[in-house]
C-alpha cells in the first residue's frame, strides 16, 4: 500500500498531531518536501486532527479583536499566488553570513584546523581522480526554477519558511532565488541526495535522506569540482535518522559538479576515496 517506512509513518502521525519538537519538525519537513507520498499521508492525517481541532467549543472573541485584525490588513502585504519564490523570500529570515559557521561545526563534529585552498590537479593523478567522479553512473534530474519552487513549496512551504537552523535558513533562501535549480540523485545504499543551487546567490545546499551514519573518525566531505579543480566545500556528519541539510562552503558556479566522499573526520585536502554521489549541474 505504501512505500513509506514505519518510522516515516509514525513521524507523520506525530507531526500531524503537533507532537514533534522544533528540531524534529524541521527535519521532517525537509523529508516531507521531497516526498509527495508522505505529503498525501500528512494531509489525510491532518483532516483527522483538524476534526479534533474543530471539536472544541467555539469561544467568542472580544469585540475589539475583529476591528484590530481588520485594521491591520491594509498594512499587511499578501503573498502573490504566482510567484511562490517571492513568498518564500518574504518569509525567510535574512541570513547573517557571520552565522555561517563551517559545516563541520554545525554538524557537531570536531572543528578541523583549516580549509585548504583548491589545489589544481594535473597529469595522471588528475585524470585518475576525475575518473572517480564518473565511474558511478547516477540518475540526475535537473529542474528549472519554477519546478524547484513547486518541489519545495506545495502545501508545506509555510513550514519551510520557519527554518530552525542556519542551514535551513539558507536552504529557504536558495529555494526562493529566481534561478534556483534542483538536481537529485540516488546515493549508494538507498539514500537520496538533492542539490538545490542558485547561481545568482552563488550558493548551493545538499539535502540528504537516508544517509548512513559514519564511525567517529570519519566524516562526509563535500567537493566542488570545476574543470581540473577540486575544492573542499565542507565536512558534515549525520544523525541516526540520516536526514541532513548542508550548505556548501565556497561559491557555487553553474556547471560545477558537486561530489560527496567519506573522509577522515579531520578532512582531506583532496578526495581520498570514491564518491558516494556526484551531481552535475547545468551550465548557466
Amino acid at each position, binding site marked *: 500500500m505504501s512505500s513509506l517506512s514505519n518510522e516515516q509513518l509514525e513521524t507523520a502521525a506525530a507531526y500531524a498531531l503537533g507532537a514533534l519538537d522544533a528540531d524534529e519538525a524541521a527535519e521532517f519537513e525537509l523529508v516531507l518536501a521531497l516526498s509527495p507520498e508522505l505529503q498525501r499521508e500528512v494531509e489525510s492525517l491532518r483532516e483527522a486532527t483538524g476534526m479534533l*481541532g474543530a471539536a*472544541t467549543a*467555539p469561544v*467568542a472573541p472580544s*469585540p475589539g479583536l475583529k476591528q484590530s485584525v481588520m485594521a491591520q490588513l491594509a498594512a499587511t502585504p*499578501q503573498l502573490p499566488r504566482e510567484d511562490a519564490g517571492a513568498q518564500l523570500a518574504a518569509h525567510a529570515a535574512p541570513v547573517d553570513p557571520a552565522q555561517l559557521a563551517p559545516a563541520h561545526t554545525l554538524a557537531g563534529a570536531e572543528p578541523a584546523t583549516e580549509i585548504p585552498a583548491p589545489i589544481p590537479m594535473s597529469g595522471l593523478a588528475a585524470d585518475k581522480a576525475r575518473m572517480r567522479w564518473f565511474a558511478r553512473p547516477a540518475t540526475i534530474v535537473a529542474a528549472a526554477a519554477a519546478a524547484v519552487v513547486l518541489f519545495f513549496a506545495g502545501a508545506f512551504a*509555510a513550514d519551510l519558511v520557519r527554518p530552525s537552523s542556519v542551514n535551513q535558513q539558507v536552504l529557504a533562501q536558495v529555494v526562493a532565488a529566481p534561478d534556483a535549480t534542483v538536481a537529485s540523485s540516488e546515493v549508494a545504499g538507498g539514500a537520496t541526495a538533492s542539490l538545490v543551487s542558485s547561481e545568482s546567490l552563488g550558493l548551493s545546499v545538499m539535502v540528504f535522506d537516508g544517509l548512513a551514519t559514519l564511525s567517529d573518525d570519519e566524516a562526509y566531505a563535500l567537493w566542488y569540482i570545476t574543470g581540473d579543480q577540486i575544492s573542499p566545500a565542507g565536512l558534515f556528519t549525520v544523525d541516526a535518522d540520516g536526514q541532513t541539510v548542508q550548505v556548501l562552503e565556497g561559491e557555487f558556479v553553474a556547471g560545477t559538479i558537486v561530489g560527496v566522499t567519506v573522509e577522515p573526520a579531520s578532512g582531506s585536502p583532496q578526495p581520498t576515496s570514491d564518491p558516494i554521489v556526484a551531481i552535475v549541474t547545468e551550465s548557466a
Partner: protein
Amino acid sequence: MTRVLSDYAPEAATTWNAGAVHPEPEVATDDATPPTADEATALLTRVATGDQRAFSDLYDLIAPRMLGLVRHVLKDHAQSEEVVQEVLLEVWQTASRFDPNKGKAVTWMLTMAHRRAIDRVRSAQASRDRDTKIGIRDLGRDVDTVSETVEISIEHKRVEKAMARLSDLQRQAVELAYYGGYTQSEVAEMLNIPLGTVKTRLRDGLIRLRTELGVAS
C-alpha cells in the same frame, strides 16, 4: 469580556463545519446565511485576491472556532486572543497558498492555529498548568463559550465517539499531544514509557481516529 449568544440558525447550517456561529451579531454581515464549508473555501479564495470584505466574513466563520481551539491549549484568554490575531493575519498573508485539493479550508486554518498555540505554550510552559483538562471530555464548556449549533454539537459527539474507539492508552497519548501540546518525548517522560511506545500509540490512535471519522486515507 461580554458574553454573546450565537444567533443560531438551524435551517441554514447544513454541515458540521458550517460555522453557524455569530458571536458578534453586531458585526455580522448582511448575508443571513452562515457560511458552509464550501463557502470557507470560496471566502479564502477571495481573500487571496485582497478582498477585505471576504476576510470579514471569513473572520466571522473561523475566529470563534480558532479561539476555542487555541484557548483549549493555552488556557489564558488574553494570550489566546493574541495568538488568534497572529493566525488570522497569517491567513490573510498566505491565503494564496491554500490548495483546496489538499484538504479543507477549515482544517488548513485550524492547523495553523494549533501550530501557533503549541508554539506559544512551549515557549511559556511555566506560565501554565499543563496537567489539567486536556481530554476530549473536558473540551471547553466554559461560561463564555459561544452556544453551539446543533451541528457543532453533533460533530463534537462524533469526535467523542470516535475517540472512545481508541484504547485508553492511545487516547491518552493523542490527547496529551494534540490538546496538551506536549511533544512525543514529553509524553514518554510523563507516562514513564519508552519513546517508541508513544510513537506507536500516536500512530495507531490517529489511524483509528481517521478511520472512525471517515476521513479518506
